[in-house]
């Protein structure tokens, strides 16, 4: 089914696209408020943080690595924003991004220097980051500059800045991953690290780059989240770790690395936001929502594993 290059194959985005259409049709039919401007703007607003964190995760997965610290980095970023945004202004965003990147580089260092398994190393980073976050902001609170909220979220419209930012990030990385030598190195590394090394790819550089990008996108996600809730929350990012991996897998990215494209990831992130929205609008139990997302994750894993097995037969 998935012949040829799995980096450019848009068929990989098909399951996510179907899910998006399905959820849109079903929810629009069952709930009159789905297609209102306010709700669509809400979807775009919620897509922004998940979209960012999923993009970072996807890049890490292209290289055959994984980053389970993204949620914790998000939480930390909301905390830093909440503590510094009113006093430092724009500088606080720079500071938050720098710390996010530093967290990613920390994971990369463990993976490179100490040769720790990336899954375990990023879990360790997650624990450390979470501890630091709870130290500096033990409970939800703080304050984020309202001017930022005005800029991003006040005008409630579907085609506002939040959606534009998501689309831009994905468009840029669709090109970077597909047609740049950096992108090719990431896929080559994820495809077969040994072969990539023999072809001149520096695994160290790839690891540093992907985890730095993942940290960057996680803290971007955290910044957007903190602006939306106008405060910090030391645990708000938790659920995003699984959602980010889930979005990447549902978008056709292979856990083994080397396969997938960001178009699929964008649609998959959108579909996960729609799942949330659907459950909210239909007033279903939020616990059911977690179950539904978990099931979607498993289905996506099974579906794409079959695709891969077919390709190798």
């Amino acid at each position, binding site marked *: 089914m998935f012949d*040829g*290059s*799995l*980096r450019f194959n848009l068929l990989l985005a098909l399951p996510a696209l179907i899910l998006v259409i399905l959820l849109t049709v079903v929810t629009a039919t069952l709930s009159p408020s789905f297609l209102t401007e306010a709700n669509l703007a809400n979807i775009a607003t919620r897509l922004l943080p998940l979209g960012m964190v999923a993009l970072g995760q996807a890049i890490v997965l292209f290289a055959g690595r994984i980053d389970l610290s993204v949620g914790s980095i998000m939480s930390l970023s909301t905390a830093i924003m909440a503590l510094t945004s009113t006093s430092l202004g724009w500088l606080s965003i720079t500071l938050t991004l720098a710390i996010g990147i530093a967290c990613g580089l920390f994971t990369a260092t463990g993976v490179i220097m100490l040769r720790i398994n990336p899954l375990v190393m990023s879990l360790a980073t997650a624990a450390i980051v979470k501890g630091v976050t709870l130290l500096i902001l033990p409970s939800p609170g703080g304050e984020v500059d309202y001017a930022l909220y005005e800029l991003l979220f006040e005008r409630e419209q579907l085609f506002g800045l939040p959606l534009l930012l998501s689309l831009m990030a994905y468009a840029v990385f669709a*090109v970077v991953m597909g*047609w*740049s*030598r950096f992108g*090719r190195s990431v*896929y*080559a590394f*994820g*495809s*077969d690290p*040994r*072969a*990539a*090394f*023999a*072809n*001149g*790819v520096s695994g160290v550089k790839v690891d540093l780059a992907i985890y730095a990008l993942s940290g960057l996108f996680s803290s971007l996600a955290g910044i957007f989240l903190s602006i939306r809730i106008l405060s910090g929350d030391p645990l708000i990012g938790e659920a995003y770790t699984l959602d980010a991996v889930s979005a990447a897998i549902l978008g056709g990215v292979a856990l083994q690395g*080397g*396969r997938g494209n960001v178009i699929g990831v964008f649609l998959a992130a959108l579909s996960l936001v729609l799942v949330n929205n659907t459950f909210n609008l239909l007033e279903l139990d939020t616990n059911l929502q977690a179950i539904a997302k978990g099931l979607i994750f498993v289905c996506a894993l099974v579906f794409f594993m079959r695709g891969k097995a077919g*390709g*190798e037969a």
Partner: protein
Amino acid sequence: MTECSASHAKPLLAVTGVAKAFGRNPVLKGVSFSLLPGEVLALVGENGAGKSTLMNILSGGMPYDAGTILLDGNEYRPATPSEAIRRGVAIAHQETAIMPDLTVAENIFFGREPRNALRLIRQKQMHLDCRRLLADLGFAIDPYRMGNDLSAAERQMVEITRAILHEPRILVLDEPTASLSSQAAQTVLDLMARLKARGTSTIFISHRMSEIIDAADRAVVLKDGELTLEARRGEFDRDDLIQAMVGRKLSNIFPGRPVSLASRPMVFKVRDAGNSALAPISFYLRRGEVLGIAGLEGQGQKALARALCGASPFTTGTVALHGKPAKLNSPAAAIAAGIASIPDDRKHDGLALNLPIRMNMSLFAISEKSRFGLLPLNAEKQFGEFARQRFAIRSTDLEQPVGQLSGGNQQKVVFARWLARVPEVLVLYEPTKGVDIESKSEIYHLIGELTAQGVPVILISSDLLELIGMSDRILTLYEGRISGAIARRDFSEEAIMAHAAGPATKAPATIDREAACV
């Protein structure tokens, strides 16, 4: 620099007294040789003789401890493969480095992709260029194929193409023909001749004596880190090479075969057996017989090996062992029926590389010697030590991980497993691929001993010398069918290649009726 010697050409590469040791273990003990512009130099030697180390030094994979290397009169000490390439030395490794999720063109052009003004890769242009390049070199591969879709031979061709794309002054080919059929190998040898005409020098490593004799302007033989022979074309023959490599004669490499097997009972019969990759084929094996299976690359050899070991079973026809039907519909069933199979890709299919020799050897012994489902460590060690000595497996001890052994010794571990239980039928698929000549000889004698015990052997191989030296009868496969049968008295490389090239119009008449199973 003061004067030119009798040889009018100045060497492009001059290696003088190069030495290299790993820890206290010397691998190269002062090797000296030179390479002229446009010269084809064959580097010959057993695995472990130091060839790979020398190649790695030349290609920037590792530094050397002592001695000098001059490239065009300047010191040559590349720290990285890319520096070697900048200086004009490119290598095509035997262990190909093909990235599975990239296309052929993306693999070949990796890091050198044509880019547009925005520094983005021009995918279409690149694949077009690649198609032209491959066609020019004589390799029939679609540039849009994915790396994981390529056969071993195609991977080797991609690897060579990648090295040539660097337009090196010195091209180093590490066993370029090991995975190739004679025809594909000829394409590579022709390519070397064309590069030579362009002035490119080639160093190639090979285990195939005939191509060394045919294609090399000069051959140097390494043994235990020292040069034991250096000779120009025409000044050496097969025996000289082998003598220099291992210090023994070719006639000692193969065990003798019994004169006639015609009176022996048929032990194994395959009738009209086929599957999606194999036309229904029929053949039989007599007690203690070696049936060689020859053919060009990818004519159903692998499918046959996989069908016989139950990995992708026959879907039609019957298989009978000692007159009783045998079901080979899974590897477990084939093993239970007593079909021992030795795969070509021992790293993926045969061995657990991280586990010690001891545990790798006892994999099949477990069921027979275990008590209450547990394998007594003592018995395991005893068997392992016995097998290690019996097969002359060179290792530090039984606990050494198999991954650290040389190719030949790894293969001996695979063979040793079957010592726990004499098989009913032994299926060998490229059993000596990438194995040095001494290990080969040991493996051949081992096969000889098993046949002396009455075990029939199916030997599927692309090594004609091996097929001719070991087989009692040879069948050729072409497009999943048996295209020819040759009796021992008619064995020759030409006869095999003629049948292997497909059923020519006159082929049926030349099929040996006794040799074919009719």
